Structures are given as structure tokens and as C-alpha cells.
């Protein structure tokens, strides 16, 4: 059974998405709502990834620990936040925000479709626990997509027309 592979891919997608939320939060630290929500959603992704752990084991897989060195990340976070403050009054921040939100959307969509793959496999493997995990986590991923879309809808007009 290659279910372990599917779980591992999903795990990777959640970890990547969490990292990207963290980077976007720092890059846009002056957009207070983006900053706080991205941190909340990063934690959500981390929690999804963690809850996949036992299932990876169940199907004989191993999840890669891909966390970047903490010290380096904390250093880069500071650099990104300072940069955000310095650029806070520049009109280019809007365009950067739209670009980052688009990237987040693509990563979240990748995560969402990975959840479907795992869910279909869980049904076929009659793993009700894994199917149940899908119910909780997938809904949150869908709300993440919806939040990113809402934020894009809010920002686009001002950035692209308002200047």
C-alpha cells in the first residue's frame, strides 16, 4: 500500500504552507490582520502535520523533519519584520502583499487536494480514524483558502486601481 506516500506528501504540504504563512506574516508585519491571522493559520497547519504522525507510522512511512534551523529562522524573521516596517509607508507593499497572497493560495490549494487523496485512500483502507481527521482538518484548510480569497478580494481594488 502506498498510503504512507500520500500521507507524507500531505505532511510536507502542510509544513511548507506553515512556513510560508510564517514568512508572509513577517514580510507584512505592518498589515496587522495579515500578521496575526498568518500566525494563527501557521499553527493550524503545524497541528494538522502533527496529527498525521501516527497515521504515517501506521502505514509504515516516515515523515521528514524539514524544520529549518530555529536560530536561522528567528534571525530571518527579524530581518523580514524590520524590512516590513521600513517599507511600511511605501506604495509597493500592496503589490507585494497580493503576490504573497497568491502564492499562499496555491500552496493551500495543494494542501487541500492532498487531503482529498488521503481521504479517498482512507475510505478504501477502511480507516475511519484517518477519514475523521480529514473531516476536521480539511474544513480548516478550506476556510484558509476562503480567508486568502477574502483578503485578495479586499486588497486587489486598492492596489491595482487605487494606487
Amino acid at each position, binding site marked *: 500500500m502506498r498510503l504512507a506516500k500520500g500521507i507524507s506528501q500531505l505532511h510536507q504540504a502542510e509544513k511548507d504552507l506553515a512556513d510560508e504563512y510564517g514568512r508572509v506574516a513577517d514580510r507584512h508585519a505592518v498589515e496587522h490582520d495579515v500578521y496575526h*491571522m498568518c500566525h494563527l493559520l501557521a499553527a493550524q497547519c503545524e497541528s494538522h502535520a502533527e496529527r498525521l504522525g501516527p497515521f504515517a507510522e501506521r502505514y509504515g512511512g516516515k515523515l521528514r523533519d524539514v524544520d529549518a534551523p530555529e536560530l536561522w529562522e528567528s534571525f530571518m524573521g527579524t530581518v523580514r519584520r524590520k524590512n516590513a516596517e521600513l517599507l*511600511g*509607508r511605501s506604495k509597493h507593499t500592496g503589490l507585494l502583499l497580493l503576490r504573497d497572497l497568491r502564492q499562499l493560495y496555491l500552496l493551500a490549494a495543494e494542501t487541500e487536494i492532498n487531503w482529498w487523496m488521503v481521504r479517498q485512500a482512507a475510505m478504501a483502507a477502511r480507516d475511519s480514524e484517518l477519514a475523521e481527521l480529514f473531516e476536521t482538518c480539511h474544513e480548516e484548510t478550506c476556510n484558509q483558502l476562503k480567508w486568502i480569497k477574502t483578503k485578495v478580494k479586499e486588497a486587489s481594488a486598492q492596489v491595482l486601481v487605487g494606487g
Partner: protein
Amino acid sequence: MAVRVDLQLEEGLGEQDVDRWVQSACVLCSHGCGMDIAVKNDRIVGVRGRAEDRINRGRLGPKGLYGWQANNAADRLTRPLIRRDGELVETDWDTALGAVVERSRQLLATQGPLAMAFYTTGQLFLEEYYTQAVIGMAGIGTPHMDGNTRLCTATADQALKESFGSDGDPGCYEDINDCDTLFLVGHNVAETQTVMWMRMLDRLHGPDRPRLVVVDPRATPAAREADVHLAIRNGTNLALLNGIQHELIANGWVDHGFVDAHTVGFDQIRKIVTQYPPERAAAICGVPATQIHEAARVVGTARRLVSTCLQGVYQSHQATASAVAINNLNLLRGMIGRPGCTVFQMNGQPTAQNTRECGANGDMPAFLNWQNPNHIEQLARHWNVDPSVIPHWFRHTHAMQIFRYCEEGAIRLLWISGTNPAVSLPELARIRSILAQERLFVVVQDAFLTETARLADVVLPTALWGEKTGTFTNADRTVHLSEQAVDPPGEARTDLEIWIEYARRMNLQDADGQPLVKWSAPEEAFDHFKRLTQGRPCDYSGMSYDKLRTQGQIQWPCNDQHPDGAQRLYEDLVFNTDPDDCEEYGHDLTTGAGNEEKDYRALNPAGRAILKAADYSPPHELPTEDYPLLLTTGRTVYHFHTRTKTGRSRRLQEAAPEVWVEVSATDAERLGIGEGDLVRAESRRGSLQGRARIGDIRRGVVFVPFHYGYWDRQASGPDGDGRAANELTVSDWDPVSKQPYFKVAAVRLVRVEPADGQQAPAPEVTA
């Protein structure tokens, strides 16, 4: 029984000395007490409660009794001001408005309407908000329109929309008379709405006393009357309310017949709240689990439940999710739409309801739905403009985002009317630096030279209540007419006159090339608005100025079906959630992600109320070793908002003359702070100084009233340590209602100098 009529006149005057009494209502809290204005020699000399008014039966609160004195203040603005060589100097109306028009035209030509923003208040009249909404949306075409209601009742508005499909409090104040249980969450009613508190006290100290549960980190007067007082940790309302919902379900205190027939979403909320047994909620909230059991038992065994909430919910972490959870309680118990059974999403300001109804706060007028093309079509027809003119690609921009756009230079003209963001918004150093930018043209419309006005490029002097005619609506949908009693001082004009003159000078036109604003008097504006509301939940179509004069007050909806107004909404248990009628399609309460029409239709509410829940998440700024205390800001009964009016009423000012810092005895002892010591409160964003009041407040929590700024020091900001509570607060807001958080910021206290015999200048009579 004789009715007690509260009366306050200038010293030495008796009722017989008054030349005339002019019908009005109080504009110093959301309760909306009917009052008459006393006039002598064409001057306001006092007020008297209206005995025949069902809202207050002749009673008035301290702000109502004394607030009118501000009208006669010596430092009223009487001439327009304009900035010349860095200084504000007096000028004439033609020059002042000419400058505003010139900048508007220039921005529209070079950057378009998205470079302009309007930020208004909860203090003006319906007619003024409506006129401003028409000008902003259909004349300029900007989505950047909000009011300071964003800081005050945005969450009330939002929670009502999420649960019931549209704004509008379902109940009436008489429900307080009829209930057998009162549940007050973050609602310091004795300070915010004294006459409502009198109504509650009449019940609490009378026969057949209702049970009372109060949630507040401070031992407020209401908390002292409570059967159960939950002094929870700031920012944990949602965990508590999830815990109580858990208990209602676990103990079979849910009216399943009601829930099945009249709500959707029960399975969704059950899934979430079952994860909050009282023991878990108690650990999060920092109260004993037995208290949560007890509170849930009181709510769960109520026969007629009135739940209320205010800033302790709206300005705190997870505001909308918490306010919606309170709606859930009444829905789960099937207690809504009949006497003694309702939920009050309270308002703070007297006319905040009208900001919301007229679309001056980010909503569409008449509770129309920005996502519903038929609604936009209807609005455009009423205004005779092309629908594409009215910005409806997104919710209108909320205040914190407007200030962000000003900060990054996208907005270049900010027009502020009747409010004082340089004291009332969070993180004041940032707000002042935004307003002071050279590239931002700031117009301020006010009766006084506020902290904000000092940072303006043009200041337009306005009339106050009593100097103009118009209507406003309180927290139980009661509309009052307030008549002009005297003329405004000097060259001051009403806000309505200013908007209309601006529209004329800008040559704002409808689709036929006719003037966009087709009225010149308040009554015409009222009539234009009321025609738009016909068939909407806030139906004013059956009202008129004459009817308001005769009846004294009328609750909307007032139409053919309810010619004298309707006491309650949803008596037929049909909610405003039909997809074609509803004001909004709702949001995910955790992220604020907005539903689209298809999501909402899939939910299929079709007239049923919507149950929604969210998981608790910790506040963003938690106490640390460096900043070990949690700040909550709030009110005293003697002051309103930033004291612009109440600080100019001698009696009110004397009653609460200066800021103070309230701290628990335990923390005070640990920090070596005594009563009356001068202390400095510091957060990551700023600092303030005030005398310490050792109070009955939760350990680890610090309270500072938010009213005190710098106008009476002739400044827009501090020189050194500040005085305004918002020097300390954090730029952070609820993801759904966008209401800023004023109840969760990490601070530390440092003793500056000993009391030397002085006490803190905090009022003794209230909390």
C-alpha cells in the same frame, strides 16, 4: 404612583423661568432617554426627563443631566480654520470649503475615488449619516467609509447579521421587566447605561427578583449584585461561552423542538462546544469550574432569559465569535421573540444604530446586502445613479484599514466628522504620525478643537445636539426626534448643511444630470431615507416627523403592518435569513473568511436563525516577564468617549477629573504601590502616568479609563509620558467585525512617586 422626573437647570433657575421646552432625547449613551431641552433667552439652560417616554419614564443619567453644559462652553469653534505655514488660523467658509473641494477634485482627477475616505461617528443624526452615505458612495464613489461605531458596536452589528440575517436588536427594554434571568457579559451597565441599570435594579431589589449572572474581570456594581460573578481572565470570553453551551447540551437544557424548527447549524456548534467541558474552560478562563457549572445551571434553567453584552465582548479577543455565542444561548434555550426572552447586542453610542442603518459605517443603507446585485440595483434606482458607481466589490473599508491606507499613502484625503481618533483609536503614537503626514489632507468637522482637529488641514465648526433637528435610534430600535432648540454659535453649521454645501460645490449629479442630493432640510432627508427602507427590516416608512412629535417615540419596523412600530422582532420566529432578503451571507468566525452567495444558499437558512461556533484561541499579546500585567480599558459613568463634551461640563468634569490606573491589592503589594501613588503604565507601544487606585479587580489585570486625552493641555498628544489609555493598546482587531481590541494588551507598572496624602482621582460611587 407619581412619576419621578429628573430635572437639571442652571443654578438659580426654576421651571417657571424657562421660556420654552423643546422635545429631544439624550445623546450621551445608547439608552436613548426622552428629554426636553429648557431654553431661556435663546440659550440652553437645562433638561428635563420626559415622563411619558417608555424608555426612561422621566429618569435621566448623570451625563444626560449635565452634558448640555458643553453646548455653552466658551471654547466652541465658531469659525472655520485652515492650516497656513504649519499653523491653524481662522478663515471663512468659502476659503475652507474651497480648499476641501479643490483637493477633492485634484485627487479624483489624478488618483480616483479610492484616494478619498470618510470617517464619521455615532453622535450625528440619521439625516446626516444618510446624506454623507449618498455623497460618499454615489457622489465620490469610494468604498472607504466608516464610523467610530467600528470601535463601539461593529461587533453587535456583525453578530446580529451572523445569527439572525440582519442587524437590529430583537427585543425591547420591557423584556428586562419580564425576564426571570439576566445574563450580562462584559456589560458594565451601571457605568454605560444608568437608566437601564435603574430598570434592572428595580427588578433586582423588587419582588420576584430575577437571577443575575455577570461576566467581568472587575467587581462592577452589576457584579456585586450578581448570583454568580465570573471574574474571568481578559480575552477568554469564548472559552467560557463554549463551556456554558457545552453544559446546556450535556444537561438537556436545549429546547430541541425550537432548535429543529427555527435554527440551522446545531450539529456544527455541538462538534465544537463539546470540546469545552467546564473544567477545560475554567482552566483557560482562570475561574473555578464550579462557577461555570453554576452559571450554566442558571442560564439552563431560566424560564425567561435576557442576555446582554457590550464592550467587554466587542472590544475583546474573538469578539464576534463570542457575541454570536451569546446569541446561541438564547437560541438553544428557544428564548427569543417573546416577552422576557431576548438577547441584547447593546450599542455604546446614542446614534450608532443610525450610522449602521444609513451606511455610514461600512454597511449598505437600509440593511441592503452588498453581495446581492438586486439590492445594489434597488439602491442605485433610489439614488438615480448607475449601479457601477456604488462600490460593491467588497465590504466597505473598515476604520483600521482606512488608517492603514492613509499610512501607506494610498488614501490622500481623510474627512473626519464628529469623532476623535487621536484619542480613541489604538496605538496612538502611530495614529498621530499617520494624521500628521504632509501628504494626507485631513478635514475635521467638530464643535471643538479636539486632539484630532489640532492635526487637521481644515477644521469645520459644527452645531451640536440642541442646535439642529434630526432623528436617532437607540439600542431597542426606538426612534426619537430631537428638535432644534437654539442657534449654533457664531458661524458654526450643522453637519447636514456642510455635506449638502460640499455636494453642491462638487457639482455631484445623478444619472440625469440633476443634483445628487435632492434635499436641503432634515425632514426631506428623513423622508428620502424612509422610502428606501420600505420592506426592509429597518422599515421607517410608516414614520414621519409629525408622528414622532405626537407619539414621542416609535420603534422600527413601522409600516402598514405595524403602524405604531413593533415592540419585538421575530415574534413569528421567522428570521431575516432568507438569501434574497438577508443583509449578509456571513463569515467563518475564526478567520473572518466571507461566504459567497452559493455557500449561504447551501446552508439553506430560509428564515431560520443560524447557530455558529468557533474554537477558542489565546489572545495575541499575552503577559510576559517584561510586561506581566494585562490591560483593559473602559469607562466611567461621568464621561463620554473622549470627553469632548463631558469634560466641558463642570459637574461631570469635577466628578471624574483625571485619569487613574486601577490595580488589584495583590499586584499593588507585590509592586510596592499604594493608593494614590503616581505610577507609569508601559506597554511595547507607549506609556502613561496616572495615580493608582487599589480596586476590586482580578489579579494580573490593570484598568485604565480611555476618556482622557490632551485637549485640555492644549495639545494633540503627550509631552513625555502620556495620559490616554490608547498610548498602550495594540493594533489588532477582530477578524470578522474588524473591531479593535482594547481589552488585551500586556503592560507593566512602575511607581513614579508616592501618594503624599493624595487619593486616586477615581469616582467612589461606581466601579
